[in-house]
């Protein structure tokens, strides 16, 4: 009998140990995958925050620019920079033939003309003089400089020719290639050229979408939650509504996208590809999340507080607005932020309402066409060019950073307000 008991006890201890082991290994696995994922993204993406520049001497030849003596500001604006830009690239190799001059031109971005123009606009005294100007390297050379380019491939399988590599290596040897922080990644809109592509459009698109989503979903959801929790009678009809709200939370997001397409774009004729439509579509998706969070936090307010207020002669409305709702706000707000974070990472519905379009302008309002961060990731990940690979990871990093900040904010709200009265 005694021995039996001891065996039983041992068995129980062993079971507990096994259980702990399972738990630990599960956590370990999760952390391992997370680490691999983050490491992969960072190791691919960090180089996107650096941009390669070629330092090229440019001679601001007034004749080539078709400028008269003492040009005005407008003249400088309208001047022809293409020829001097072309010439300064061609001058990198005095012996270049016409084909090679073309290849030299393709070593920098098509933006080089603009960059030279800006240089002169900043300092009009440069006319007639020669100055070394920073020109954005083409995305392939950018990758070459970052060491991401397979130089040992046969030439016909590469987009960079042997000639370009030769000149580039000379420039590197002379210290005429520099890597600087990639500001344009944050200030430029999308571009077909990887070296010029930036996230400004999609970032603003995301912000506008989230704001529209917040402004629609939050008040509607909170009012719905307050009504259902505090005022609605508990009967079959409200049960039915509750079940359907929970179902709504489980509807795949692409269905909401179709709804946006069919209703907002087709029936209401709202402007396509805009954060306005995106935000409305996302708000439909976020609505049930916020309602559920708000109801849960309303439920968590102890009934004794309601009774206290009612017994003081407060009306139901006063009880709700003075006591229950303020007490439930921390939970509601953090639920809202988590719902918004979900919406921020949503891609499928936005693709359906056209936010996947190529947008090379930065939106100034929710009515302007824009992309959004996750859609931008999708667009770049689809691009064949090598230069976009690191951009995808960098964009993921920005999106993750955004999400982490939002979640942190949710935590802070919850903590700050809960601490106050405990």
């Amino acid at each position, binding site marked *: 009998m005694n021995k039996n008991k001891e065996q039983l006890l041992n068995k129980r201890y062993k079971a507990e140990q096994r259980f702990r082991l399972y738990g630990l290994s599960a956590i370990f696995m999760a952390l391992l995958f997370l680490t691999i994922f983050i490491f992969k993204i960072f190791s691919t993406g960090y180089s996107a925050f650096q941009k390669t520049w070629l330092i090229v001497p440019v001679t601001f030849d007034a004749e080539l620019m078709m400028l008269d003596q003492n040009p005005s500001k407008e003249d400088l604006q309208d001047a022809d920079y293409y020829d001097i830009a072309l010439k300064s690239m061609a001058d990198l190799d005095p012996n270049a033939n016409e084909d090679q001059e073309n290849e030299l031109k393709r070593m920098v971005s098509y933006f080089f003309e603009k960059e030279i123009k800006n240089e002169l606009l900043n300092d009009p005294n440069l006319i007639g003089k020669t100055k070394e100007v920073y020109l954005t390297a083409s995305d392939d050379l950018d990758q070459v400089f970052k060491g991401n380019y397979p130089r040992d491939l046969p030439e016909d399988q590469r987009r960079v020719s042997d000639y370009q590599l030769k000149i580039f290596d000379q420039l590197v040897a002379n210290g005429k290639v520099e890597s600087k922080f990639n500001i344009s990644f944050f200030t430029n809109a999308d571009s077909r050229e990887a070296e010029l592509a930036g996230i400004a459009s999609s970032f603003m698109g995301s912000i506008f979408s989230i704001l529209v989503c917040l402004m629609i979903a939050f008040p509607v959801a909170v009012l719905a939650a307050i009504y259902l929790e505090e005022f609605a009678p508990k009967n079959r009809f409200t049960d039915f509504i509750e079940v359907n709200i929970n179902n709504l939370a489980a509807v795949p997001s692409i269905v909401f996208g179709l709804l946006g397409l069919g209703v907002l774009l087709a029936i209401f004729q709202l402007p396509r590809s805009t954060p306005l439509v995106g935000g409305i579509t996302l708000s439909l998706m976020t609505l049930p999340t916020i309602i559920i969070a708000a109801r849960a936090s309303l439920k968590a307010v102890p009934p004794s507080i309601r*009774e206290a207020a009612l017994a003081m002669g407060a009306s139901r409305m006063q009880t709700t607005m003075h006591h229950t709702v303020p007490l439930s706000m921390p939970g509601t707000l953090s639920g809202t932020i988590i719902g918004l974070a979900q919406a921020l990472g949503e891609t499928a519905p936005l693709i359906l309402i056209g936010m996947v379009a190529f947008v090379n302008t930065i939106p100034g309002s929710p009515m302007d066409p824009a992309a959004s961060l996750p859609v931008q990731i999708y667009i770049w990940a689809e691009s064949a060019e090598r230069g976009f690979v690191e951009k995808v990871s960098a964009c993921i990093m920005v999106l993750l950073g955004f999400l982490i900040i939002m979640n942190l904010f949710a935590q802070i709200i919850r903590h700050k307000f809960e601490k106050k*009265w405990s």
Partner: protein
Amino acid sequence: MIKIKAKDVDVFYGKKQALFNISLDIEENQVTALIGPSGCGKSTFLRCLNRMNDVIDICSVKGEILINDFNINDKSCDVVRLREKIGMVFQKPNPFPKTLYENVSYGPTIHGMAQSKQEMDEIVETSLKKAALWDEVKDRLHEPGTGLSGGQQQRLCIARAISVRPEVILMDEPCSALDPIATAQIEELIDELKKEHTIIIVTHSMAQAARVSQNTGFFHLGQLIEHGSTDKIFKNPDNKKTQDYITGRFG
């Protein structure tokens, strides 16, 4: 003088009947204790008096309850006005998670009882003084009410209840969560409050009923078995069940 007159009150929770035919008169400016074993319906009856049972969806109340000769179960009765006149103190101290000052000033604020900040300060001070809490908290009126001890919290709830000068105060086992010292303070307070208010107290402690009340009603299984002066109920009850309960033979 009779303050409250309950006539043939039946209470149902859904299909289940919780109170049967309760008729009870409650004297003005006296303490009436409602005693009985758990689940006998004494709290349910208490909650009928300020219509707190309205909050429970499935609960329905039948019969007449006359307060100042006005039937509070009548459709024309406004619960907000009713609860302004009939305050309530609950079993567990339930101060609002706000400051002491806000706790006491809440009732006068929503009922518009103070014209100025000064008037409100006065109401808060007198209420806290009447609840014998003023001296302990006068320096920290703007600290959270939830930071007080259990007994202080309950006195805060009493101060909150009397801040709107109710005619009747209902107390639902106000001392069951308190230690003996805090209980003694509350009992003393009840004695003091009955000068201005009619008090009805539900209690599990027969000793407490004997100490604080002038009248006692004994409930059992949803029925009012016996009621009368506390002296009579405790010393010479008519009913055998009352006798058994009081002497501790059941309950």
